[in-house]
């Protein structure tokens, strides 16, 4: 049950983040923060199917994480959920075609080690 929830939490977070990035990139850069312009952007984003998929995946991620911390200690749940950094970085590099240089790879590696240590 514990590892099933980890798999569900990690996969839904990865799907949620990647689709949110794809959807927002498709929408375009938000640069006008006046209320009217933000309302228009919000209306367009709410009809973007990639953002809808992302929101559903994030809801699954949220509830599976809540369930996970109810049956496992935070010192397990927090570092194990940080596994998402690895597939997300690979997907950012190869699916989203981002320039992931050595500083990003090293930084993500250091953060992963840090998350394991900070959760002890």
């Amino acid at each position: 049950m514990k590892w099933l929830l980890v798999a569900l939490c990690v996969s839904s977070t990865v799907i949620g983040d990647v689709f949110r990035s794809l959807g927002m990139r498709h929408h375009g850069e938000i640069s006008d923060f006046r209320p009217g312009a933000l309302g228009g952007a919000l209306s367009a984003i709410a009809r973007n199917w990639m953002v809808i998929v992302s929101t559903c995946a994030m809801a699954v991620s949220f509830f599976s994480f809540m369930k996970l911390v109810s049956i496992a200690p935070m010192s397990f749940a927090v570092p194990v959920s940080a596994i998402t950094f690895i597939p997300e970085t690979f997907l950012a590099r190869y699916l989203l075609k981002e320039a992931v240089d050595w500083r990003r790879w090293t930084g993500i590696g250091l953060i992963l080690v840090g998350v394991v240590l900070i959760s002890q």
Partner: protein
Amino acid sequence: MPVTDVRRKTQLFAVLSVLSNVAGNSALTHGMQALGDVGNSPIDLIAALFHPWVALGVFMLVVWTFAHMALLSWADLSYVMPVTAIGYVVTAFAGRFFLGETVSPTRWAGIVFITVGVFLVGGTHPVSEKKPDGGQ
């Protein structure tokens, strides 16, 4: 009033994203612990939303969602994801100063690792299409 300075607005929204996420999770956890076992039925869960701390937590997480979405409309996922990991450090410091929790040497080491990692990624340009060399 369009905001075109990408680095400045990335910093602003990254800070907003981290603070709203930490505040939202903390308020939600505090509220759910105060409520105790709320049961599993949808009505029980909806009723829990009216607890002040749970409502504040949900509101802050809605702010986080919008800030995170705005960030991803211009910045790379491989930039946003690690940079906002500084939230782990903010949570540890919030626990230390507001809840009086002790921070062990191992946790201090974790804080150092995360901070160095965040600064390393933060030194790259947020948008890889414009500055594929990292922007330095």
